[in-house]
């Protein structure tokens, strides 16, 4: 990595976030709120206290897993958007596995849920990745379709065969006993889903950056033809990357069921999957960046309610902020390789720079 790329790695996000803050400030001023006050409230509600940190971390956990769901297959060259579907069927499978094993000890029950969620979610994205590799079906399209199929499956089973007759107005499966739900990290309100998310990101980073398999995967993603020429098992790599990504989304669904709702219902499809796609792109499909982006985004999401209380602004204010931030960060990708004039400003003119330009 050259110093120019290093400079861009810092400068581009700074420019993008600066633009987003400026646009959002203009928006706030336009609707008669104090931009500084609103931004300060967002910060306070996200990171201002241990209580706020816990809120942010709780929301970051599913984003980490859903971000990986897009990032891992993308590293192997397959773009999928099936996170929401994999999340939902993972949660559904986890609920089914959990309800079938409630007679056993809690740890066994949770292990069954973990496995069921990961395997079913993994199979879901592996299907889309495999269809692209073996049949040439665009994985964006097939995984988008799989989202609706997954959600329909959830609704059908929750309102039909898996329905708890007592859930009258809001159909849901039978609840898991409290003893068999995913607990909280001692001394906090944060459930163990956060541990899953952080470990998954670290494992993802380790796999991609520190193992031979990760190198093969990135070669496959970078140049499929070259990968084939050097004899890499391209199909197996694509399928595995799809499975691992989907397993993360399925696991996020399992956490949603096992730690938050205690049962599967329509409520588990809350859109984390779709936000996860954005997390992956904003992180440029890198697991460590996903960790950071998820945390920041979790903090932003956590601050929605506080704007209502302190500034009398609708909850949706935070979505406007998010939207502006996403759009300017995505647009800032275009700056890559175009900041030469800035580099010159920040570095003393030397022969090195002159050489680089030749």
């Amino acid at each position, binding site marked *: 990595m050259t110093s120019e790329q290093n400079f861009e790695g810092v400068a581009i996000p700074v420019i993008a976030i600066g633009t987003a803050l400026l646009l959002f400030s203009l928006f706030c001023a336009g609707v008669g709120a104090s931009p500084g006050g609103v931004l300060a409230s967002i910060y306070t509600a996200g990171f201002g206290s241990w209580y706020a940190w816990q809120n942010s971390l709780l929301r970051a956990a599913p984003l980490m897993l859903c971000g990986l769901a897009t990032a891992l297959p993308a590293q192997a060259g397959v773009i999928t958007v099936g996170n929401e579907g994999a999340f939902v069927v993972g949660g559904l499978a986890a609920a089914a596995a959990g309800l079938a094993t409630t007679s056993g000890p809690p740890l066994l029950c949770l292990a069954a849920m973990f496995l069921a969620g990961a395997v079913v979610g993994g199979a879901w994205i592996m299907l889309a990745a495999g269809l692209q590799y073996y049949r040439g*079906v665009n994985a964006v399209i097939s995984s988008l379709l799989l989202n609706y199929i997954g959600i329909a499956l959830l609704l059908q089973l929750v309102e039909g065969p898996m329905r708890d007759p007592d859930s009258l107005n809001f159909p849901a499966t039978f609840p898991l006993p409290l003893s068999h739900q995913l607990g909280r990290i001692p001394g906090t309100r944060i459930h163990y889903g956060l541990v899953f998310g952080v470990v998954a990101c670290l494992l993802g980073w380790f796999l991609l950056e520190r193992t031979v398999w990760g190198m093969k995967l990135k070669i496959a993603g970078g140049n499929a033809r070259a990968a084939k020429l050097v004899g890499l098992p391209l199909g197996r790599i694509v399928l595995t990357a799809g499975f691992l990504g989907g397993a993360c989304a399925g696991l996020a669904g399992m956490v949603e069921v096992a730690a938050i709702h205690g049962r599967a219902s329509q409520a588990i499809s809350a859109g984390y999957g779709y936000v996860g796609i954005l997390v992956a792109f904003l992180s440029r499909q890198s697991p460590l960046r996903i960790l950071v982006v998820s945390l920041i985004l979790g903090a932003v999401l956590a601050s929605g309610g506080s704007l209502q209380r302190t500034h009398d602004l609708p909850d949706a204010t935070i*979505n406007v902020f998010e*939207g502006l931030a996403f759009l300017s960060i*995505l647009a800032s990708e275009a700056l890559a390789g175009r900041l030469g004039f800035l580099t010159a400003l920040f570095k003393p003119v030397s022969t090195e720079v002159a050489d680089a330009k030749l």
Partner: protein
Amino acid sequence: MQSSDSLGNLGILVAIAGGALRGSIPYIYVSLGECLTEKSGRINLGMEGILLMGAMTAFAVSDQSGSPWLGLLAAAFVGGLFGLLLAGITELPGVNDVAAGIAMIIFGSGLAFFFGKQFVAPMAPQLPVIDFGQGIANAGVHAALRISPLFVLGIAVAFLMHFAFERTRWGLHLRAVGDAPDAARSMGIAVRRHRVVATTIGAALAGIGGSHLTLYFPGIWSEGISGGQGLMAVALVIFARWSPLRCLAASLLFGGAQALGPSLQSAGISGFYHVFNASPYLLTLVLMVLSCSRTRRLDGIPGSLARRG
């Protein structure tokens, strides 16, 4: 004597058909708009945000100005602005249209909910309806034949778009841009301009679709008003295999069927209601798997969509 009884079952059928027509309108506009966008080789996943923005804008303008037609125009205009923004961003080098589309969902729904919060008016002035059933005594049949002008306009747009794709130079160029951008560029076609225009008009259509949600009975604005229709219509275009006329048919079939959920449930189909709703997507997936291979691709798919990834 012609009484309501003698119409009997026929009357119920007509009433059901009327409901289907109403329910299909947002789907018609969003799927046609998406079809136009995808023909140019881009995916606009942000239709849900644009639909909501259209719905809120139409309501707000109709409420403030007293003219639903002005509301309709404003919805189309705002939809077009969003399309232009999306197209502008995705034309930048290195920007992925899938990610930008999802950002548009969040931005569009955020803005719609933000400004929509203030419009507490219970009802805005609504678009007039065209009464095809004048003089029919049966109340149910008469109600069913009171058709929104947007439905008639939607059919016209579908045929116009079909004609434009098949019979005009612009349509040919647009399809070339979507099928093989490099070849189109070498022929001197302005690739970027075609994509931007298609995405903008497509989003304006989605804005009109949104206006139907708030300018037709019951004519109220709420945050749950779109119910994910903007997202589903994107998948419907794939089911319709990128043909405007098939988009129209698919919207009538599935938009209508969803609108009829309650009556279907009373007819005993409730057991498989959700599976039925997902059937177009399942069917499309199966169709794609069967008709694609490493060397062949889905009939009708714009080339630059088939080759991605």
